[in-house]
């Protein structure tokens, strides 16, 4: 089914009237909710101009932007390390050598069912007891990498498995080794096919960096906490920061969407697969 439009007919006069009524009811309810929310906010003085004015000023924004830099820094590190480790894991899980396959599978399955916060508590409170006291940035990046590597591995593996078998078979019949076939033929295509999923994973990873709040690493949400503790503008600060996350992730999601339509156009090129 392509779109929502199949679910209903081109509305006739009565249908149009019904849609109009439903639209009006929706708008009325929406306006009522918004007005009610605004009144609740106003009655507690949360809409006063001087509670919002700080967020029109540069010092506050420069303070928050330092946090955003930390978020981006942590996200970039986790993305690079997690993708690299995830690729190794995916290849391990696809490996013909049984012990390697088992190890990779076990790692992926375990890491996927552990909450990131638990991993963070382990790095925060357990590892120092064994003499491993990482710098703050790595206390956030290490657990996130452990968790995201498994997610990346599953994405890459799905990509490799989605390739037609003929690709690998053709490479082998040309005299390539397994490794060469994977490296030169299968992986380049598979990675291109999963590019949109990788970018979606980046969104989820960027959301995960908000756990820097627990680690006390200087990222956006932690900065917001410090700022709110200082200026007591809890509602305003956390709302603004939530919107900053929204904008960053919408940009990434938009990139993922564009990549998806782009790759779809690419793969829709007339490569005719002849079956014998």
């Amino acid at each position: 089914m392509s779109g929502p439009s199949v679910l209903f007919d081109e509305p006739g006069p009565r249908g149009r009237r019904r849609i109009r009524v439903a639209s009006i009811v929706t708008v009325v309810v929406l306006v009522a909710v918004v007005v009610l929310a605004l009144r609740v906010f106003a009655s507690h003085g949360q809409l006063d101009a001087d509670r919002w004015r700080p967020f029109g000023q540069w010092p506050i924004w420069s303070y928050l932007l330092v946090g955003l830099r930390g978020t981006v820094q942590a996200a970039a590190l986790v993305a690079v390390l997690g993708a690299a480790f995830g690729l190794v894991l995916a290849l391990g899980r696809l490996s013909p050598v049984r012990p390697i396959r088992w190890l990779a599978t076990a790692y992926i399955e375990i890491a996927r069912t552990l909450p990131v916060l638990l991993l963070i508590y382990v790095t925060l409170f357990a590892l120092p007891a064994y003499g491993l006291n990482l710098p703050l940035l790595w206390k956030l990046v290490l657990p996130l990498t452990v968790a995201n590597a498994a997610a990346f591995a599953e994405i890459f593996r799905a990509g490799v498995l989605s390739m037609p078998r003929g690709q690998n078979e053709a490479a082998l019949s040309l005299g390539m080794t397994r490794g060469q076939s994977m490296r030169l033929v299968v992986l380049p295509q598979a990675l291109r096919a999963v590019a949109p999923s990788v970018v979606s994973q980046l969104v989820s990873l960027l959301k995960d960096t908000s756990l820097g709040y627990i680690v006390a690493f200087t990222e956006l949400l932690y900065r917001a906490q410090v700022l709110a503790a200082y200026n007591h503008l809890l509602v305003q600060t956390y709302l603004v920061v939530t919107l900053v996350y929204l904008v960053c992730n919408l940009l990434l999601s938009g990139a993922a969407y564009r990549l998806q339509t782009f790759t779809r156009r690419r793969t829709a090129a007339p490569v005719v697969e002849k079956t014998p």
Partner: protein
Amino acid sequence: MNVLLDNLPALLDGLWTTVWMTVVAGVGALILGVLVTAARVSPVPILRGLAFGYVQFFLNVPALALLVLFVFALPDVGLLMPLTTTAVVVLVIYEAAYVAEAVRSGINTVAMGQAEAARALGLTFVQSLRLVILPQALRAVVQPVGNVMIALVMNTSLAAAVGVVELTASANKVNLVHAQPIPIFVGAGLAYMALALVIGLSTGFVERRVAIFR
């Protein structure tokens, strides 16, 4: 190992909180998610837009930021609920967006002829959605929705960050007192894996039961 047994009541309390948060938030997210999907495919443009905005917003905002906003900031406008209730509410509205995404992909798998046949029989939009489209769409998304539920178990641990004493928090507390991280955290990890396994197995079971063989 002893430390686990000695602190079993506290840890089981935490596990219990995790389980009931998961169940309540899971059921809530399922209901809200299906409603959002219904709005998203409805003939009313404003409802479609609202549902689309809802999903986009919650897919792109960190759950922890929402938890912090609801738990620490909203009491400033008089919205004061018990802590665990607030966490569950946040999880419901957050995971509902993911459920909605999954169910919508299920609606896309329903053959076009089904909707056309429903229309040809004279079913209204709500009837065709309720009687024809959704029953088939939901069967197709048991596995994806199961994955959302597993993600929900993982996300209940975020409630520890705002002070709810669930499994992660109680494990952490026990460790802070007894300083035996290996048995405590491994035990908590195993409990989470068991929960995920239970959800995974039951989605597999449900999927086999409701699958349509064509």
